[in-house]
């Protein structure tokens, strides 16, 4: 049985009732993990409160930060500051230089593009090649497909179709998230998968984008954030004091 993950739930963090409502709805719709973007100045106590709310509805909280830097220098500074503080780092690429830097940096987990501005969607072949080498994933928020209508929706569907085709060619994982700010905009994983067929993502690939792909990103980062992590493929299994003959 698949474990579904929604990596982009956007409740109002200051309103814990709203957080609980959205997390409860997500749990009811079949998600087992949710990612909530947090402000960089968030306190540990607040994160603990959010974790408690999630645990009460048997859902796993994934902490995440959404960066939207103006320059690649700002992106690098932010990555240095926040990489070890949050489990997921998503970068909204508003310029080509930021998009390229984010795609080639292994500390970036998710590449996101502005849904309202098709001219700011920089996910082309060069971007996909860099993202593929750096194990980055393309994140698609489905809320934009729900609230846009008419010509803007046609444009976003057209852009997404091209991006998904490029991602498939370069084996860049696609992560499908809700991006919902309100419980009324949340949908079940199979419903999102059906919506994803609108931009030519097949049902099996869409379901993978809602389960295996986000799960592997979270799993990889949790392992990296673990104190026993040394380098890719290298972990501290046992301390020196526990080894025989020392």
């Amino acid at each position, binding site marked *: 049985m698949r474990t579904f993950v929604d990596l982009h739930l956007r409740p109002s963090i200051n309103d814990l009732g709203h957080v609980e409502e959205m997390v409860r709805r997500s749990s009811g*719709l079949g998600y087992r993990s949710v990612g909530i973007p947090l402000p960089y100045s968030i306190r540990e106590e607040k994160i603990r409160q959010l974790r408690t709310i999630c645990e009460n509805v048997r859902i796993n909280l994934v902490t995440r930060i959404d960066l939207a830097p103006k320059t690649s220098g700002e992106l690098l500074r932010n990555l240095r500051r926040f990489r070890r503080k949050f489990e997921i780092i998503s970068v909204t690429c508003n310029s080509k230089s930021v998009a390229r830097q984010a795609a080639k940096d292994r500390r970036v987990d998710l590449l996101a593009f502005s849904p309202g501005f098709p001219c700011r969607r920089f996910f082309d072949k060069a971007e996909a090649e860099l993202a593929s080498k750096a194990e980055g994933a393309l994140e698609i928020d489905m809320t934009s*497909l*729900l*609230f846009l*209508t*008419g010509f803007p929706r046609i444009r976003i569907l057209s852009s997404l179709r091209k991006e998904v085709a490029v991602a498939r060619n370069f084996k860049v994982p696609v992560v499908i998230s809700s991006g919902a700010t309100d*419980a*009324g*905009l*949340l*949908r*079940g994983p*199979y*419903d*999102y998968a*059906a*919506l994803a*067929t*609108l931009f030519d993502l097949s*049902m099996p690939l869409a379901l993978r984008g809602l389960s295996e792909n986000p799960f592997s990103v979270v799993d990889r980062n949790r392992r990296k954030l673990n104190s026993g992590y040394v380098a890719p493929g290298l972990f501290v299994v046992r301390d020196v004091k526990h080894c025989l003959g020392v």
Partner: protein
Amino acid sequence: MALKVENEEPLSEKDLVGAIWNSILQLFGEYGASQTNLYLVEFTPKNGYAILRCSHKAVDVIRASVVAITRVNEKPVAIHVMRVSGTLRALRQKLVVESK
């Protein structure tokens, strides 16, 4: 296909069918809509449960269209697909089992 309609104000059967057809027409056009063989079997406005019958080849089309509905008569609405089954009888049995 069993649906659960979540809405703040009561919705009539006509509103629901109209919203679904509008959504299909917007996303797939008249050609796509003609292949769905869509029919609303039942709708209980009280609890928001509805059952749709459609061509099995058009399940994804209907699902995407139903899910894309966010407003009916300018009021916010969310429609979730609860179950899909090959026959109405099996669908009703599954719903009964789930409600227990």
